[in-house]
């Protein structure tokens, strides 16, 4: 049955008010100076922050790859478990997400601190204290921890649809475990991988809370710089809008590149 087009009106209004109009405002702010006259100055001013932008993208890529490496086997194991175990494991995965994002990240601070839980435990066996926080590793850890479920859920929901008999057929035709993964499970999981990659990469590349709380001010990401332009002491919404715009274009470009790669992969395999 075809749904009447009028059902799309609420969503269209929503998108108009909260996506199209703000996007227009961002473009408008980015292309003007304080006096309201057109300029590209804000875009050129970005060059000062290229290293921060580069670091943001690098961290986000590393976090995405780690998430994928953890999530792929985890999702496969969940998808092959009995129905009861599957729902238990998925709920366990979701439980941390019911707790506030800030609280979860604070919890990592108290774990990783100089006199935090981990260092104190290590101290008991005569090790440490180690510098676990305020470095790039802690920021990436924060990203992986917070966004891992966004990788597992789409992967799991694709993998659970792979019929066990297809896996058995691959084994029957001579696939060992490695070939089974490479020639059957990986290509069949591609839709889940591309969804998961976007769901982890996009929030990772634009986060500012994680880097502020776990990065100790020495690992600022582009999200931190943008946030400062709006609520910090270097108030400049024009520059902030320009940065947001450039970041958005870069993300869109990378995603389309990735999707291209993803769909080609399907054909080759």
């Amino acid at each position: 049955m075809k749904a009447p087009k009028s059902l799309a009106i609420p969503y269209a209004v929503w998108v108009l008010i909260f996506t199209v109009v703000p996007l227009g405002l961002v473009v408008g702010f980015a292309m003007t100076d304080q006096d309201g006259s057109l300029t590209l100055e804000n875009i050129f001013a970005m060059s000062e922050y290229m290293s921060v932008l580069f670091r943001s993208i690098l961290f986000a890529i590393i976090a995405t790859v780690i998430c994928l490496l953890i999530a792929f086997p985890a999702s496969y194991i969940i998808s092959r478990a009995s129905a009861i175990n599957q729902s238990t494991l998925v709920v366990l995965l979701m439980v941390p997400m019911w707790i506030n994002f800030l609280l979860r990240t604070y919890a990592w601070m108290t774990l990783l601190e100089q006199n935090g839980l981990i260092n104190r435990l290590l101290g008991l066996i005569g090790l440490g204290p180690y510098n676990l926080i305020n470095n790039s590793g802690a920021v990436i850890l924060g990203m992986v921890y917070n966004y891992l479920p966004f990788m597992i859920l789409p992967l799991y929901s694709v993998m659970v649809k792979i019929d066990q008999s297809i896996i058995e057929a691959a084994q029957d035709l001579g696939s060992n475990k490695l070939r089974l993964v490479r020639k059957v499970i990986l290509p069949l999981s591609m839709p889940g991988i591309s969804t998961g990659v976007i769901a982890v990469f996009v929030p990772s590349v634009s986060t500012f809370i994680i880097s502020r709380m776990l990065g100790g001010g020495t690992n600022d990401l582009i999200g931190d710089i943008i946030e400062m332009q709006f609520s910090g002491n270097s108030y400049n919404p024009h520059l902030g809008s320009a940065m947001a715009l450039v970041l958005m274009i870069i993300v869109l470009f990378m995603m389309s590149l990735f999707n291209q790669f993803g769909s080609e992969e399907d054909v080759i395999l």
Partner: protein
Amino acid sequence: MENTIISLRNAVVEYDGEQILKNISLDIIDKQFVTLLGPSGCGKTTTLRIIGGFAEMASGELLFNGVSIKNLPPHKRQVNTVFQKYALFPHLNIYENIAFGLRIQKLPEDEIRERVGEMLELVNMRGYEKRSIHSLSGGQQQRIAIARALVNRPKVLLLDEPLGALDLKLRKDMQIELKRMQQDLEITFIYVTHDQEEALTMSDTVVVMRDGMIQQIGTPQDIYNEPINAFVADFIGESNIIDGIMRRDFLVEFAGKEFVCVDKGFGKDELVDVVIRPEDIKVVPQQEGAIVGVVQDVIFKGVHYEMTVDALGYNWIIHSTRSEEPGSIIGMNVTPEDIHIMHKSEDE
């Protein structure tokens, strides 16, 4: 000249503390079409999965050409499987589905092309190479699944109710084609089905199973003509199964009368099952019949009429090319050779 290619010895399979297979021993003879036949839950698919490497035995031995393959993973066994739900790879086209096993063996491209072509020829699917599997009907998908398994030139092909999802006409055609393939390729087929007619049509050897145990092994003729017990008789074709008493050798009493039969070696006055095929009962005028009954019901079945006749406390099923009016009184005769005497099954 008959070589045993697969030998299952005292196989026991347990699942959740329940015995699925209870001590099964079975020799599969090379180049034969062997059918595992039985109702659902009898253990026939489990037996097939043991041979394929997808089910584990709690105890027992599995020999392939005399060598144990019990602990060999599926991908190292010289058998291939045609799965019940076809299990084709949805991300690959038809050519790549069939080529899958050959690519794993890393064969040269021109050999792959040649062998895939041969297989498409064999299953009458030439010209479909580039098609996606989603564009095929169930029957066509099954042909591709058969080609994908046979392209690896297995010694033994395992088929798990491969025709179950097809309609009757297509199923009959495929039965004949499968039999032809098996004879042309000269390899062993082990075929699982619950359809007794399918088993009789295609097999060299039929293995009738029930409740995780083998009931009878034999040629289709053996199984049909000399069923070993009432279960086999009833499962293979329709049967009238009547309680009887063996009065002495060659004399059985059932339905209150004594009949001459050709069986001997039972205990005196042993309680037995008497099995009579519906087509072996002759309809005669009332005064000539050994048994007299009233026709209850007549159904036209195409080749014959199936009549239910009430006589001496039993509902007899008779297959006859002539029909009688419901309510009419008829006589029934049966020759001694058509009376089959069987020991009562232990669990009944």
